[in-house]
């Protein structure tokens, strides 16, 4: 049965996280999740907006939620936790009438409050389920040791995000296990990587992200699996920047969980964008193929 969800790709899907967007669409198509991209979606404003003003931030999110209502859908999925956090926080606050009225004054078309937002990860867990995912695996990731990294805002605060455990989330672990990989215990699953401070304060990101990569290596991981464009950028793209202060040459691939899903389900690499990663996972992946054959 095909389930329809509105899809909000988020701005980074057009740039730094193209491969996340590509692989998400490919995997969902395969699993029968019909993602309908919100026509003419716009930016949620991310941190700069909520740090500027809460009504403005809510208005930028609510415009997109109102578009979902126009589509006649009541659920929207987004791959990006930062977008998700904004969408969810805005709807949560807009449950209060006074705030909703205020925000709607900024909009051309008011948002009525009927849309439930969720991450692509949540949609895959709740609308598809790990049993179906396991059944679709064509080439299991046997022997791959993976550290799932959820990032800080995917599940926090739990009153708003309402998905998985805020301190020890396991949804991605369960998916990776279903793909046949070995999930290493990774205690810093929900630590902050430094987020958007990569631009103004490289040293902060270096310290935080460096710690995460060290921890992943200590745990015996061969790759870090992420669900957030910002985390991916900090851990992969900046890996060279992090190496110097940490005194380690990490060289550890940082891949999106959707990419691994697509790979395990036998989707062509052209739809998964592994080539867009800085630290290539090619060697690792070829090892699983060899093990399988």
């Amino acid at each position, binding site marked *: 049965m095909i389930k329809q969800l509105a899809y909000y790709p988020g701005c980074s899907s057009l740039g730094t996280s193209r491969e996340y967007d590509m692989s998400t669409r490919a995997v969902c198509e395969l699993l029968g999740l019909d993602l309908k991209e919100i026509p003419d979606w716009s930016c949620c404003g991310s941190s700069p907006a909520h740090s500027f003003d809460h009504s403005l931030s809510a208005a930028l999110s609510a415009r997109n939620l109102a578009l979902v209502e126009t589509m006649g859908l009541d659920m929207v999925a987004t791959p990006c936790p930062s977008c998700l956090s904004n969408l969810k926080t805005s709807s949560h606050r807009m449950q209060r009438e006074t705030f909703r009225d205020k925000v709607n004054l900024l909009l051309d078309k008011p948002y009525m409050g009927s849309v439930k937002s969720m991450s692509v990860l949540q949609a895959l867990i709740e609308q598809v389920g790990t049993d179906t995912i396991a059944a679709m695996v064509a080439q299991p990731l046997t022997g791959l040791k993976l550290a799932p990294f959820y990032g800080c805002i995917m599940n926090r605060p739990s009153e708003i995000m309402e998905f998985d455990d*805020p*301190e020890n989330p396991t949804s991605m672990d369960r998916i990776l296990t279903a793909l046949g990989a070995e999930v290493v215990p990774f*205690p810093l699953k929900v630590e902050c990587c430094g987020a958007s401070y990569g631009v103004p304060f490289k040293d902060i990101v270096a310290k935080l992200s460096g710690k995460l990569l060290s921890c992943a290596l200590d745990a015996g991981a061969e790759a870090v699996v992420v669900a957030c464009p910002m985390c991916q950028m900090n851990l992969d793209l900046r890996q060279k920047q992090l190496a110097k202060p940490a005194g380690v040459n990490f060289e550890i691939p940082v891949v999106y969980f959707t990419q691994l899903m697509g790979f395990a389900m036998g989707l062509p690499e052209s739809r998964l964008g592994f080539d867009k990663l800085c630290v290539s996972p090619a060697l690792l992946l070829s090892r699983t193929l060899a093990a399988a054959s």
Partner: protein
Amino acid sequence: MRIGVFVCHCGSNIEGTVDTAAVARAALGFPEVALATDAMYTCSEPGQDAIVQAIREKGLSGIVVASCSPRMHENTFRRAVERAGLNRYMFEMANIREHVSWIGKDREANTNKATELVRMAVEKLRRNTPLFSNKFDVTKRVLVIGGGVAGIQAALDCAEGGKEVVLVERESSIGGKMAKLDKTFPTVDCSSCILGPKMVDVAQHPNIKLLACTELKSVGGYVGNFQVELRKKATYVDWTKCTGCGQCMEKCPSKKSEDRFNERIGVTTAINIPFPQAIPKKAVIDPASCRHFLKGKCGVCAKVCPTGAIDYEMKEEVLTEQVGAIIAATGYDVFDISKIGEYGAGRYPDVITSLQYERLLSASGPTGGHIKRPSDGAEPKTIVFVQCVGSRDKSLGRPYCSGFCCMYTAKQAILTRDHIPDSQVFVFYMDIRAPGKLYDEFTRRAMEEYGARYIRGRVAMVYPQGSKYIVRGADTLLGTNVEIEADLVVLAAGAEAAAGAPALAEKLRISYDPYGFFVESHPKLRPVETNTAGVYLAGSCQGPKDIPSSVAQGSAAAAKVLALFSKDKLESDPQISRVDIKRCVGCGKCILTCPYGAIKKIDFRGEPKAEVVATVCQGCGICTSTCPQGAAQLAHFTDDQILAEVNALCRF
């Protein structure tokens, strides 16, 4: 009727926001009021004397006192009017303190409201009638529920007072939490050395009937005459034959039973005596791990038992006891630390509770008194204690202070340094709460003499790194966050109401607070009584308590029981229902709805009628609001009396 109205100032408590003189003046205008006056402290000796004198001199036949809540002083004043020769029910109270002067500062509105409440009381009083108690017999036996230190103390005191005691304990041995402790603060004496002899006294006392592995099933009856049903669980060992020799434990091939006595650190045999000093010292089979029950074959224990006590066919039994009073001493549970995800308990084996740590310290514990990490058995060198875990935490629904964690953490810090002199001990705390005799001195010793390093701040997270655990906390006095590489993390888990406490409260018909602790009759003046006559509280079931307080409450509850049993007859509360036989049509609606079965059908000149059994009726009045004929009327809360109150409020 000649009514006297006394309006109390309660010092400035009432007079501060109510013009009591004006209230008294207004009261003079109410029907049948012959005297109205204000007084400084009506409940004081001169205040009560003034009432007595007024009744005698002015020939008053009813009294209204406008002062505090009737839940506070109704009995005080009832006794006063009785001293003056009136029936104690010819008295009403208007609550102008808790319901008026203390909840608002508008003097005009308060004065007006107080006047109305007095009018209501006068109108009610005008319809009061003298009521008289009946006398009934008392069963002078007491049921003590829970064999922790509070229950043990209560049982021993009652038994010493010459009364028969039935002591029921859910586990297979009495001793409770205290039996699990290694040492006790602030004296650091050995817990089992001071508790052990008391447990033996319980076993040997001729007046105590000890029922272990037993729970309360139901309670019927009323003060002086409770009928109690007890459920004795199947132990699969005939305790009349078991000598506690322990040969069965030595030979038992299944060692997978969860070791509840050792707080689930490790496992134990399927047939088990929890600890060497257990009372009663009898074996119990855990069918969840016994091979006989799981696979249908084994029978090793039956073969080795020298007395042939093993009985795999044993069934649960229900016992009945008659008692006159009940003491609930069911204790507390330790907060489930795995609920705090950021501390990783449950995922990380070396993050444990203080009570588990206590078992590691105890010579009778799983490690023989050597501190070893649960994960690898290594001796930890850096130990971090975290206080207020599951206490003072609104986000977990536990906003209260558990009271004793500061003290036992200091004790454990001291014991740790005693056991492992080259260890480092860190304690994260928010505030040190040590307001007992020698308590604060004790925590200071932990810091000053034993070098425990106290850090003021909470811990945000614990995570493993190599074989160590990184404890990331704050030092708010330094204004920074700190990290400690620890070998073992001990969480001072707070106390919470015992699982099943609300269900027990419902059986006993007593109240419990939002956290599940039982509610006492008055927080200061009736700390061990409940609102159900004949049911008393002892120990932590009423709220977290340390050993001295639990013992004191056990004795206090016993004193209450002994005082109750000092009378041969009890007086019944006359505020019960009566059925007017003329009005009764015998439809039995009251019989159907009475929660106590206190109304029976009788034959009156060939017609069915209802009749209230005076000793069983508890005075709820459900029958009164059920009977369309108005035949059943609850004395002191009759339809007419309540209607008079409604009219007093609405029609003026």
